[in-house]
């Protein structure tokens, strides 16, 4: 990754920490313009699309990344996990499960990937397993629960007000 792209990626990660997902996405799009051949930027951009719930665009970026010369192969398991998230959102639970399991087996223990696994377990009615999976997030990111609840409460309240308007 070149210097300009790297600076934008760092700025984007600061925005992700603050849950400013839209702002992070803009910065990562700019980073990609600065270094279109960086597989690393593509990986981060795909993640940002996922966090912004723009799943088709995330898949497109991940597909584009595979056409590049892969230098950051350590990110491959994470991308598998994120692809799993997209399959979950599309309702293809079987494929989602395969990808997420492969990601976690390769130690891609990102909170969002573990959450995807837990959601698959909830979907399958495996409540206790889902709770166990969720407990693992604490080791990697102790503030994830708080941030996620805040995000989901905002989302639920938006969804409720939209439904009321309809």
């Amino acid at each position, binding site marked *: 990754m070149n210097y300009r792209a790297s600076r934008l990626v760092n700025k984007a990660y600061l925005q992700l920490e603050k849950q400013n997902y839209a702002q992070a996405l803009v910065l990562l799009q700019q980073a990609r313009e600065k270094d279109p051949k960086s597989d690393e930027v593509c990986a981060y951009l795909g993640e940002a699309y996922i966090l912004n719930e723009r799943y088709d665009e995330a898949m497109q970026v991940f597909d584009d990344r595979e056409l590049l010369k892969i230098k950051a192969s350590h990110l491959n398991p994470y991308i598998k996990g994120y692809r799993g998230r997209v399959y979950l959102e599309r309702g293809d639970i079987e494929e989602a499960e395969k990808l997420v399991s492969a990601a976690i087996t390769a130690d891609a223990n990102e909170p969002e990937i573990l959450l995807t696994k837990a959601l698959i377990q909830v979907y399958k009615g495996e409540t206790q397993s889902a709770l166990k999976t*969720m407990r693992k997030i604490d080791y990697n990111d102790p503030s994830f629960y708080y941030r996620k609840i805040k995000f989901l409460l905002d989302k639920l309240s938006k969804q409720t007000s939209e439904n009321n308007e309809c």
Partner: protein
Amino acid sequence: MINLFMAFWRLRIAQVYLNKKPDKAIAILEKGIVKYPGYSFLFLHLGLAYAQKENWDKAEYHLQQACNLDPSNPVFDLFMGKVLIDGERYEKAILKLLESIEKDQNNQLSWSYLALAYLGDGDNQKFNEIVQKKPLSENHELQIRMILLLEKQIRNWNSYELQSLTVSE
């Protein structure tokens, strides 16, 4: 006194097995409740062990027995409410958690779990009312359940739909 000590000892042995060999823990606790039918904690832990195995009927039955043996203890109601939420028995969870709150109004965790039970039951208004009045507990077990329930609620995944999907698959 010796009886109480022996019941407590049996409980500790069961707890050792609970995570790795839950069936063995259940067998120890099942024998324990026959031998010491007045020791509420054996019933409580047996209920929790059945919950771990996702045998919700037996979990509910034994937790209720624990509540009956020690009706003044709000913690038993709280545990039962939490297990009922895990088993997606939200209406019963609401009643149990209201009982717990009636016995101890200051328990923040009971209020937070009550909010969760309303959320699971689809009563977003009551969920919001509690969340606005009572700050959510920072307990991680509660936060984990809240994330999963919020995700389910936002995706409109309810048990009925999930069951029918599983069957059709």
